[in-house]
């Protein structure tokens, strides 16, 4: 309970800050930003981009997750890891590579390509975890009742993974609303442009705050709609399900051709940025300093681990509460967490500067403050994955464990924790990867002199030392491979048939 209150307090901070800043020059100034014709245009454009990318990510994410968990696609383990890796790319790095490769892509097409190729793992990772949790007995039953493969997938499998997939889709949609790197490089003006511009060119914080409020309100509406549609369904199984192998679909003649799908996606998502890195490296004469690279790697691992730990510790009880005993407190925290995800990092970062220096002075620009920032920014990532895992666990299972003599904690540990472990793993991976590439809040709140891979990458790029920047980008992707591989391979909790 105290933990939930703390979480609520943290997640609503940026929103409080936005309201303070949006109104500190009076309502007139706020209204003039809000009711400009151009604001509506940009808003519609943001929503359109977000919708297109979300739909593409859902198709790619679910398709790939199914392929690597349920079929006999060749090199399955390897493919499982490889298709998760593009997530490690910061959006601006991917965007620069793409625009260097094909300048003609600038505009909506380029923005869609870049954002889709780096965000589909938001869907893929939880979908993979959810597919593993599905009870094969249900599918067998459906099949025995005469349903074909597609019909089984649509009527039995899809409803079971729906909470996970919808949560992932939500994260994609909100991330696209908040992204600046990709749309700026692709020269596609959306709402975040105006936010950054008002800081960078005119030092006027009112437009940014007003539009930030708009983004937050929008995301709260989207989340409310999503949870409303979820409430009408029940996705928990009734029994625990037998610990039993999941059926493997033999692809037959399509087995090798089916490899083209993941290979194609990885080549596009990772290959183009790899080409961009190579070009940076071969064009430039600057070189990264080995000691600095090593230190930045250690620092990145440190803040990544601390941030992930904090997010999971706060998200897990909240997820449990919002599924099992939904109330206004958990709902507020949940909505505020998602709103945080839809806000550009610069806005969340400045809100923590504002509150941090006033109310947590000894912590300001020290590691705990940075970790708090990551909680505000990425709580929703952990929340969605864990919630969908908990939603698949029947509540009465824990009661049964208790009647069989386990204590409350032991029952929780042996039932809920264990069954939701793949979801928690997916959540930890998502959060860890996202923290690694976070930039604006890290720049504001890191201890002075503390560098991570992303701050070094940014510093080298802004001094035009492209060749020195390349190793940092490559290291981020290599580091990302570790949690993705853990998630992909250790998550196979059942031997496959």
């Amino acid at each position, binding site marked *: 309970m105290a933990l939930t209150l703390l979480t609520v307090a943290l997640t609503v901070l940026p929103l409080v800050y936005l309201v303070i800043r949006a109104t500190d020059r009076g309502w007139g100034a706020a209204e003039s930003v809000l009711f400009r014709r*151009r604001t509506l245009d*940009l808003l519609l454009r943001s929503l359109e981009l977000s919708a297109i990318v979300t739909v593409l990510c859902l198709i790619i994410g679910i398709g790939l997750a199914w392929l690597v968990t349920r079929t006999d696609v060749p090199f399955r383990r390897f493919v499982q890891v490889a298709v998760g890796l593009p997530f490690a790319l910061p959006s601006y790095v991917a965007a620069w590579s793409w625009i*260097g490769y094909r*300048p003609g892509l600038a505009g909506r097409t380029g923005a869609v390509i870049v954002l889709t190729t780096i965000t589909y793992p938001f869907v893929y990772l939880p979908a993979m975890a959810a597919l593993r949790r599905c009870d094969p007995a249900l599918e067998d039953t459906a099949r025995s009742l005469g349903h074909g493969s597609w019909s089984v997938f649509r009527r039995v499998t899809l409803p079971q993974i729906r909470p996970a997939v919808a949560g992932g889709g939500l994260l994609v949609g909100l991330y696209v609303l908040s992204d600046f790197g990709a749309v*700026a*490089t692709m*020269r596609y003006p959306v709402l975040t*442009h*105006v936010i*950054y*511009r008002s*800081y*960078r*060119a*005119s*030092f006027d*914080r009112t437009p940014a705050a007003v539009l930030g409020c708009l983004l937050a309100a929008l995301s709260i509406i989207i989340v409310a709609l999503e949870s409303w549609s979820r409430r009408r369904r029940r996705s928990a199984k009734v029994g625990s399900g037998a610990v039993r192998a999941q059926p493997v679909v033999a692809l037959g003649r399509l087995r090798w051709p089916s490899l083209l799908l993941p290979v194609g996606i990885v080549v596009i998502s990772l290959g183009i940025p790899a080409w961009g890195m190579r070009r940076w490296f071969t*064009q430039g*004469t*600057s070189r990264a300093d080995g000691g600095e690279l090593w*230190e930045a790697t*250690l620092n990145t*691992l*440190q803040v990544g*681990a*601390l941030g992930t*730990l904090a997010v*999971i510790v706060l998200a897990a009880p909240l997820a449990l509460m919002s599924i099992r005993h939904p109330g206004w407190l958990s709902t507020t925290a949940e909505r505020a967490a998602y709103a945080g995800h839809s806000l550009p990092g610069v806005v969340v970062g*400045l809100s923590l*500067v*504002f509150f941090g*220096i*006033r109310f947590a*002075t000894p912590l*300001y*620009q*020290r*590691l705990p403050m940075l970790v708090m920032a990551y909680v505000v920014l990425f709580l929703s990532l952990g929340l969605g994955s864990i919630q969908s895992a908990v939603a698949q666990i029947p509540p009465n299972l824990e009661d049964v464990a208790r009647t069989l003599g386990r204590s409350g904690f032991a029952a929780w540990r042996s039932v809920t924790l264990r069954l939701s*472990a*793949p979801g*928690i793993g997916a959540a*930890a991976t998502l959060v860890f990867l996202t923290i690694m590439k976070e930039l*604006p809040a890290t*720049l*504001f709140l890191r*201890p*002075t*002199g503390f560098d991570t891979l992303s*701050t070094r990458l940014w*510093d080298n790029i*802004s*001094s*035009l*030392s*492209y*060749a020195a920047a390349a190793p940092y980008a490559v290291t981020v992707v290599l580091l990302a491979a570790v949690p993705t591989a*853990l*998630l992909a391979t*250790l998550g196979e*909790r059942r031997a496959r048939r």
Partner: protein
Amino acid sequence: MRTERTIRRRWLAPLAILPLLAISAACGASDGDSGQALVLYSGRDEKLVQPLIDDFEAATGIAVDVRYGNSAEMGAQILEEGSATPAAVFYSQEVGAVGVLEEADMLAELPQDVVDRVPARFRPKDNNQWVGVTGRSRVIVYNPDLVDDVPEGVLDLTDPKYAGKVAWAPPNASFQSFVTAFRVAVGDDQARSWLEGMLANDPVAYESNNEILDAVNNGDIAIGLINHYYWARALPELGDGLKAKLVFPKGDDPGGLVNATAVAVLKGATDNPDAQALVEYLLSEEGQTHFVDETMEYPLVEGIAQPDGVPPLSSLEGLQVDLTDLESLEQTQTLLVDLGILD
């Protein structure tokens, strides 16, 4: 049953790695905090500034902790931090970011003899709250493979022969300063008609100077409007790979505005002699020469050798605009929004 237990253990292993990693990293890595050091917020990058700070530390024995970031965002950060800001000194890429702190009454007065070292146009009119450190000229960058008839100034660019060939960066602060200078020096109406002439020529809008230089160098676009030091900094990195060439607009062409980087001391450090020493070091011969050598920027202090390879500052003074007259940024932005150049 045994399989279940092994399964559980396999799951716990990776989860257990996290806290271990966190603890071991926390013990190993430093917090970057070194007590009573002077805190500098630098809007210019580490590769450029840190060598100079190292020299300063060696020369004076004053320890400096430098926080690197983007000038405009650091300006916003200091505004949010208010009087509690840890920063003693702020070195900004542009006058705008220190100007906004001056307006918010957050800066300390610098000694008269310090600000007197630079010409009047590179320091505030009514007080001594910041001082220019180096100058950079607006330039036209072009790709010789794509341009036969090289323009001499921005006024040439409205010619139909440059249709679709010119890149500019309307959201960029230095572009907006240039338009402001245009307005102040030549008049609002002329500035508007030049912008309209440019629009009729379908310019391509980029987000930053870096991206324009990259695009011109790669041959994606023929001509761009940037600051000269972007080109100068890319020179050692790219060597012969830097195909792009520069034109310094001369005479009364408004394209040749010389803008400045600027340094200021925060109010909280008013009586801190170390902060004053750092400001003076930036204006010393060592400080000025460092920037000349690394970025070909113009030294603002009299008597320092000018950079090679670019026209001398004195030849660029056709457009006599006081930097402090560039405060009417809001009118510029209104104009740009009005013409649909800015969102």
